[in-house]
């Protein structure tokens, strides 16, 4: 069954969606969309570094994103530069550095488009393993820290006064984001990852009565988007990554309409 590239593609996409849903909820709640976007831009430097150092590219991406995330997290402690400025400096410099470094590796046959916009149909068995192991560990961390994460999201000072290690919580969230970006890269590409985090979560909001409901619903909607996107991509011969994102967008628009109906009742 795993020999069928379509099955592999769906399993990979579903694995990413299951993680991106709950994590995306935090991205929405904490207004971290720009952070996620910037972080994924720095992934290109990770690809180049991974290639130069001859290590697994996903490992390179995870490490680079984590480094950038930690740097941002620590620099946030000082209050001279606002966070969005910091992010702009760090992440986009990393993107530029990645592109410049890439040009020095002269005879590199790298499918840049594949990394930027995803190539889910080329997912290998080892990619699949990466996605499910990475995804499972992110979900495990989210489950363990769930209530503390929620309180820190509601009010950091309050959480801190009640003994929640807020800095550790913040760094944990950033690290899980880095890992998710690394594993999602193959599916929708580094330029479209944020949409996989945000669209299902935003679509789930109108139907959820609790944070847990929203997280589970977002995961489910993400899986549906992957299925629809892949089917559409096959049927109309469109690029798979963007097709998945378009499917997620359609679900979001439907949720707006559904939400409007719900309010009218």
């Amino acid at each position, binding site marked *: 069954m795993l020999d069928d590239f379509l099955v592999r593609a769906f399993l990979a996409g579903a694995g990413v969606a299951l993680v991106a849903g709950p994590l995306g909820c935090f991205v929405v709640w904490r207004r971290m969309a720009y952070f996620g976007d910037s972080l994924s831009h720095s992934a290109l430097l990770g690809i180049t570094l991974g290639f130069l150092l001859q290590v697994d590219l996903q490992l390179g991406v995870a490490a680079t994103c984590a480094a950038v995330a930690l740097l941002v997290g620590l620099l946030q402690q000082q209050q001279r530069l606002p966070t969005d400025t910091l992010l702009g400096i760090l992440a986009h410099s990393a993107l530029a550095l990645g592109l410049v470094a890439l040009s020095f590796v002269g005879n590199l046959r790298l499918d840049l488009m594949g990394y930027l916009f995803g190539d889910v149909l080329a997912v290998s068995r080892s990619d699949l393993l990466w996605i499910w192991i990475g995804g499972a560990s992110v979900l495990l961390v989210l489950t363990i820290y769930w209530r503390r994460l929620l309180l820190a999201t*509601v009010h950091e000072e309050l959480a801190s*006064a009640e003994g929640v290690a807020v800095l550790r919580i913040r760094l944990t969230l950033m690290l899980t984001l880095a890992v998710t970006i690394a594993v999602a890269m193959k599916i929708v590409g580094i330029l479209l990852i944020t949409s996989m985090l945000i669209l299902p979560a935003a679509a789930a909001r109108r139907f959820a*009565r*609790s944070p847990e409901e*929203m997280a589970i619903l977002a995961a489910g909607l993400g899986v549906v988007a992957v299925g629809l996107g892949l089917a559409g991509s096959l049927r109309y011969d469109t690029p798979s990554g963007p097709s998945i994102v378009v499917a997620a967008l359609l679900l979001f628009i439907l949720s707006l309409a559904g939400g409007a109906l719900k309010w009218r009742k």
Partner: protein
Amino acid sequence: MSRLLEARGIGLTRGDRVILENVDLDISEGEVVTLIGPNGSGKTTLLRILLGLERPDAGNLHRRSGLTIGYVPQRLTISPTLPLSTRQFLQLPHRQPQGKVEQALRETAVEHLAEAQVHALSGGEFQRVLLARALLHEPELLVLDEPAQGIDFNGQLDLYQLIDRVRQDRGCGVLLVSHDLHLVMAATDQVICLNRHVCCSGEPEAVSQHPAYTALFGPRAAQALAIYQHHHDHRHDIAGEPIPLRQRNNPPRLRNEASADEPF
């Protein structure tokens, strides 16, 4: 009365800016201490130090060992993207027994809001929910940062009465932070007027007539308090009958910085 918290000579400097200088502050069981000062006077920083969120450069802070603090932060807004009911909010960061949750909500008279979404609560309702949340941890010391902000006049009176009732029922100490003395509750035992250092402290009436207070807030502030106390020595119930507020028998006691090293 057992002492809950004792701060001596607290000082904090950030860069070359002095934020706090030689601040003393004590709170005992069952005592209500109100910290007032204009914006930028270091109230919030002092509060953060007392809560253990920030470390002072100078002075020392002694808390009774195992002291539990219930913290009601300054008015906070919850993102409407987060679906969270009052009941769920009270269960963060740890699950609490349902009976305890119900009791805390009843104590602050918001049991009817248990299933309401927190982002849709009004300012006054949310303050009560925050207070209920603080009570869950059975605090020996309640710390409230500007609890009356954004609440209308009657709502503020109700809130202060509620705080006073909680204090009497539970015998906990209360530390209130406020930027004006205008509505400082009648039940405040001690007012500390802060402007980087302690300008003056003592009972509310005494502080309101202290020259340092007048210098800080202007003569109108002192008048406002006097007027407030003159006109509001009673409230009216629904039928219009006056209800007397707590009477104060002791003459005002005055203590200023020059004679601050009163032994305890």
